[in-house]
């Protein structure tokens, strides 16, 4: 099956307050369409409900007023989905190889595609190691391999490269783009780093503070392959911030560039 295209409409997503008190509204009146094979970045300030939105799209959170519809009419549960979380979420009791294989069905697990992908991502020497022996960057590479190995029709990534040092973050972004180019699919990538978003995305959607909704939808027309240090990226960023100063106010001061990220 080909990559998924989807229409997201969230009228309201709220969390109940403690003891039935007044809750917190995370998302309100958010509408978003994502065409097939698009690399979409969602940018918003910390705590604006980005992770909540991803969990709704992934159907991990079904307690929501709204609807996710796949445009090709596919049933929600039939779309092959992969999700890379903020932390790697590898199973510590499985080896690297097993961690990637575990998401495949039995036949696919035996045909060596997990190993081939891990080799390709320069993890061939660690196939039989347990994840806690690996560095943070390598653990994320394993998580990235696990996300790609099923050839997902929709790939969700929620700030997957935070708290990595600069060269490792750069390498991982590079790997993500290489994999995506080799196996095109619809990608929704959440970040609070504008520069990272411009480097990666076909299109950037900006969310407001909670309750979040779309405040700006900007296509990124830069040619690929891109270079992180290309002045065009910085120029694009400056241009965006200047054109929409009031709209994006508060975003820029949290944006110190993709390679100096800190965990929130």
């Amino acid at each position, binding site marked *: 099956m080909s990559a998924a295209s989807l229409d997201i409409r969230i009228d309201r997503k709220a969390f109940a307050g403690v003891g039935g008190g007044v809750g917190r509204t995370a998302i309100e009146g958010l509408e978003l369409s994502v065409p097939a094979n698009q690399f979409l970045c969602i940018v918003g300030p910390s705590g604006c409900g980005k992770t909540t939105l991803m969990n709704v799209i*992934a159907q*991990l959170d079904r307690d929501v007023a709204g609807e996710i519809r796949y445009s090709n009419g596919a049933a929600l549960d039939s779309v092959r989905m992969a*999700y890379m*979380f903020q932390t790697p979420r590898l*199973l510590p009791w499985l080896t690297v190889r097993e961690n990637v294989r*575990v998401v495949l069905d039995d036949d696919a697990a035996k045909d060596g595609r997990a190993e081939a992908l891990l080799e390709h991502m320069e993890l061939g020497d660690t196939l039989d190691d*347990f994840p806690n022996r690996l560095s943070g960057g390598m653990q994320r590479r394993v998580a990235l391999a696990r996300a790609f190995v099923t050839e997902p029709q929709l790939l969700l990534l929620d700030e997957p490269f935070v708290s990595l040092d600069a060269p490792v973050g750069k390498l991982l972004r590079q790997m993500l783009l290489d994999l995506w180019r080799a196996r095109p699919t619809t990608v929704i990538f959440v970040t609070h780093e504008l520069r990272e978003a411009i480097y990666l995305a076909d299109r950037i959607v900006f969310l407001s503070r909670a309750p979040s909704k779309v405040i700006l939808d900007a296509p990124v027309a830069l040619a690929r392959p891109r270079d992180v240090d290309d002045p065009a990226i910085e120029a694009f960023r400056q241009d965006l911030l200047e054109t929409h100063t009031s709209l994006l106010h508060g975003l820029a001061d949290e944006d110190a560039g993709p390679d100096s990220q800190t965990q929130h």
Partner: protein
Amino acid sequence: MSSDIKTAQRELNGKVMGRPGISGTAIGIFMGRRKRVDDLFDGWLILLLNIPALVSIVLCYVWFGLTEAAAIFAVALNKFPNVVVTLREGTRAIDRDLLQVAEVFRLDRRKTFFQFFLPQLYPYIMVAARSGIALIWKIVLVVELLGRSNGIGFQISIFFQLFDIASILAYTLAFVIVMLFVELAFVGPMDRHITRWRK
């Protein structure tokens, strides 16, 4: 020595080790996962936990007769609530983040249970097994003392009448050696195997 063997047989009897172990694990998981099941059984669990072993043993003998089956059942009844409590605690501590991974990738229930859920419970299962083995052997002696005509418990009651301390200690030592063997040969290696990733 035949008393030792008889006692060890009772201790390691499948009905003593296996049934309360497996059913206790299953009920513990259920109680940890479902609030309603927890509410339903919580009172009974506290009750079972706090009935003195002596009371449940005497009642079993009175109700079911002075039989081997009654003895075995009495031991199982004493171990069961400990397994439930331990596994319920383990289930409550399950890391839901990992279960979400299985959910997103739409893994089937079997895989989710055996690869994502059960391994998180292994430490608790090992605790239940270790403390269970220790508890069972204490209960087995009381059961033998009260209503069996063989086994260490029965022997000890005779030595007690004779005030024969040396024999009491000899029997104890012999049994401790048997239990050490069980730990070193089975429980320890199993524990090391399932936690090898921690190193």
